């Protein structure tokens, strides 16, 4: 069996960090290589080098035994390398056909685009690999699962036989993941070779023929999946033994803190994205909101925190209604909010840490007296929180933008936890973080629960939801499919709910 792709001694340095150091990777023909590593291990950098988006400082690439120079995506495509990016590279306002043909456009008479020819080719590819899609649909109207198919079609249209799938399961329901694995199977059978990038251990064990583990930019080792276990892979990936479960005691739910009834919310584009949602969060419990991203979770949180107006229904926080209530008033009533996008909402990256530490309370004693800011209390507060929450920073005067993702998230957690809170809303609290930071933030969230706060965790990572929640609400197309007890549910059940199928219905139809 031949090696279809070899990366040898790849080194890539960025100012201040070595993203890849002397990395060797081998892909056998017709096989699936899993590239495993946690966030920030250098997987994506490596693949961007392979795809010509970055230039390596050292090392070389060989395709089918021949050393090649890849200076850009065009070279990669010419070598038969195709990439399905983690964040889909699709233009939302264009059709499937337009997205697929972009870059190699056939024309009639040399000027006018020949869309029908491409649509025909898309239908052929669809039939051959079981990738069903309407060539004339607009991307923005398609669910993420279908968008991923379009990404794969794009690659196949360019006749790639080496496919790189970068975290392809991140946005899929468990059932959609199954579907993807079937597609991968078909691809392998028709002679393609695949690099599968992920940080999810179970997926690796399910599909891979070979496993290569990356940590801190270096190859830790390669392992045969037959000999691998989750525990072993985890310790290779993180470099120490990790507990895969969050230790937490039984919840002692008390009074309801938050009662939501029939809530409807429009997003910024005036689409009705939350359509009649009802639930409650009690003191001392964690309610997890699961769902594939883009099913109204973001807007739900925005409405709860006053960032979007309420279109219909009611929200009651500690028995007081929230309606046309400003974000400030909601904060003052004891809501802490770890926002989904920490760089967009959570921090002002160009402000120093000490200012970010008082971002929500700058107008209050002791940070302000009258209208003037008081520097000393501001600095003291930041110094204390940095110590208490173990934020790794040279000092409190550097800008928040200079911190790593994990430390930025810690700044937000420190700030939000530093005031008395009745309700904690944590949206995607560990997205893009390394395992150490994830563990730390999970512990802090459980600690808040045990102190008697109500906690609402929104996450598209099912593992995170299962690890933290006492009860789980599953959102689909702006509605809550069901609320289940975390101890009495399974991934499969949640997956069906996430796909909009009620398990009881599913049984009935069978």
């Amino acid at each position, binding site marked *: 069996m031949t090696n279809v792709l070899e990366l040898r001694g790849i080194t890539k340095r960025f100012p201040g960090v070595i993203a890849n150091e002397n990395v060797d990777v081998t892909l056998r023909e017709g096989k699936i290589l899993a590239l495993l590593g946690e966030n920030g291990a250098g997987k994506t950098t490596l693949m961007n080098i392979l*795809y010509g*988006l970055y230039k390596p400082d050292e090392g070389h690439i060989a395709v089918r035994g021949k050393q090649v120079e890849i200076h*850009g*995506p*065009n070279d990669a*495509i010419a070598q038969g390398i195709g*990439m399905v*990016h983690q964040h889909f*590279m*699709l*233009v*939302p*306002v*264009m059709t499937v056909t*337009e*997205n697929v*043909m*972009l*870059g*190699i*456009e056939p*024309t009639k008479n040399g*000027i*006018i*685009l020949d869309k029908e020819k491409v649509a025909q080719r898309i239908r052929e590819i669809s039939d051959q690999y079981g990738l069903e899609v309407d060539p004339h649909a607009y991307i923005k109207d398609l669910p993420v699962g279908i968008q991923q198919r379009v990404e794969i079609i*794009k690659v196949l249209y360019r006749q790639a036989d080496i496919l790189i799938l970068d975290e392809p399961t991140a946005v899929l329901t468990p059932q959609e993941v199954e579907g993807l694995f079937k597609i991968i199977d078909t691809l392998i059978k028709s002679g393609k070779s695949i690099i599968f990038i992920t940080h999810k251990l179970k997926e690796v064990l399910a599909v891979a023929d070979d496993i290569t583990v990356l940590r801190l930019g270096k190859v830790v080792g390669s392992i045969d999946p037959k000999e691998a276990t989750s525990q072993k892979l985890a310790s290779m990936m993180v470099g120490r033994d990790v507990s895969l479960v969050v230790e937490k005691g039984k919840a002692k739910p008390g009074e309801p803190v938050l009662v939501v009834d*029939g809530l*409807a919310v429009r997003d910024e584009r005036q689409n*009705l994205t939350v*359509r*009649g949602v009802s639930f409650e969060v009690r003191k001392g419990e964690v309610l997890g909101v699961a769902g594939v991203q883009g099913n109204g979770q973001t807007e739900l949180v925005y409405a709860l925190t006053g960032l979007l107006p309420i*279109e*219909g*229904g009611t929200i009651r926080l500690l028995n007081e209604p929230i309606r046309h209530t400003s974000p400030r008033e909601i904060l003052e009533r004891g809501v802490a909010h770890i926002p989904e996008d920490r760089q967009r909402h959570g921090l002002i990256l160009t402000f120093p840490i000490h200012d970010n530490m008082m971002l929500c309370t700058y107008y209050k004693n002791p940070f302000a007296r009258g209208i003037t800011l008081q520097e000393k209390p501001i600095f003291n507060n930041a110094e204390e929180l940095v110590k208490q929450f173990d934020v790794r920073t040279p000092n409190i005067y550097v800008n928040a933008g200079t911190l790593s993702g994990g430390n930025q998230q810690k700044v937000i957690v420190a700030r939000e936890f530093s005031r008395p809170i009745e309700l904690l809303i944590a949206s995607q609290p560990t997205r893009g973080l390394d395992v150490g930071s994830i563990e730390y933030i999970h512990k802090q969230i459980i600690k808040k629960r045990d102190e008697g706060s109500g906690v609402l965790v929104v996450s598209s990572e099912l593992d995170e939801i299962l690890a933290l929640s006492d009860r789980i609400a599953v959102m689909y197309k702006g*509605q809550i499919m069901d609320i289940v007890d975390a101890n009495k549910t399974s991934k499969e059940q949640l997956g069906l709910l996430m796909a909009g199928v009620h398990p009881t219905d599913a049984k009935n139809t069978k």
Partner: protein
Amino acid sequence: MTTTTMELSTSAEKRKRISYGMTLLVAGLLIYLLFGLTTQAGVSTTFGLNLAGSQAIEVSDLVVPAQLTVNLMAAIAAFAGAYQLAKGIRSTGWLIGILAVTFVIAFLTWAAQDKSFNLTGMLGSSLVRATPIALAALCGVISERSAVINIGIEGIMLMSAQTAVVTATVSGNLYVGLIAAILVGALVAAFHAYLVIRFKVDQVVSGVAINIFGTGFTSFISSRFLQKATDALNNSGTFPIISIPGLSKIPILGPVLFENNIVIYLMILLVVVMHIMLFYTPWGLRTRAVGEHPKAADTLGINVYLVRYVNVILGGMIAGLGGAYFTIGSVGRFDEIMTAGKGFIGLAAMIFGKWNPIGAFTSSLIFGFADSLQVKLQILRVPIPSEFLLMAPYIVTMIILTGVVGRAIPPAADGQPYEK
């Protein structure tokens, strides 16, 4: 749960329906109060349909009874409003159209009561006055479709205008002036592109710098050289009117559309060509992809920077043509700051036209109409100070930007530098 959804959508619809209906009702009332009551009974308004010196076949002028027409317009607006309140037409475009048409007709009938008003001449001058605005708007469309904001159109047009007249005067050939103007437009736009693509300079700041530089530079040249030697440097004459054989004989349409100079024909041609290019060719597909999602384009091997350079420079050439209009296409000499904000009005037209060539052109026509209207009204001695009429295009621009007449969504990456 589904019932909630439906109720919600109907309540929003209802609110919209009521607000549009009320607006039309109020407009009807206003037309009656403002114009209907102040129009003398028994007089008529004459709308001239022929243009002196035109090749078009003569038709008889349109004579309407003034008061009746005004009141009819008031009634139409009010009826449309009432119908909207009761049944709901829902098409926003139609409602705004009815509003605008009834108001404008009523206003013109009122303003020209007992007098004659040349409608054909007015439409013709609307197109002429829309030309620099449309060219500025097309420049905006082509650059912003590739996500580069060019707010320096005003400065580019000034420099091109000056270059055009000087080169045309010196060479004695207007076409040399035209080409020079387009080249200067390309050059300045290339500089803008270089700053914002290579150095990632804030696009608005770069545009403002170009405006300040352009204003200063042309005024400098003007007061140092042109004013002292007007005949040798700043007196080019203008492009002749070209009558399209046959077509120019059509009444009304002929003099409006087919008796113009080359700049105006080029502008109309550009609108059509750009529309086809943008939506039906590989270049357009790539441009739109670069404007919406540059990273996606990049991963497919499209050179994002190259697309942006090309588009910004093409845009600059179009703005250069717009600059040439001001001098060799219109008055034959350069005056300081003669563009008078047309570049910015062009940007407003681009936004109102939703970044589409045809939309931008149509919006420019509205501005051109407003512009030529104020000139006509001065001639008719309407008792409104001319300064206030001159403000109209600026106020219209501001109203359009508020988005109350339809929200325009720019290309997703508009204004953002692209980092690999």
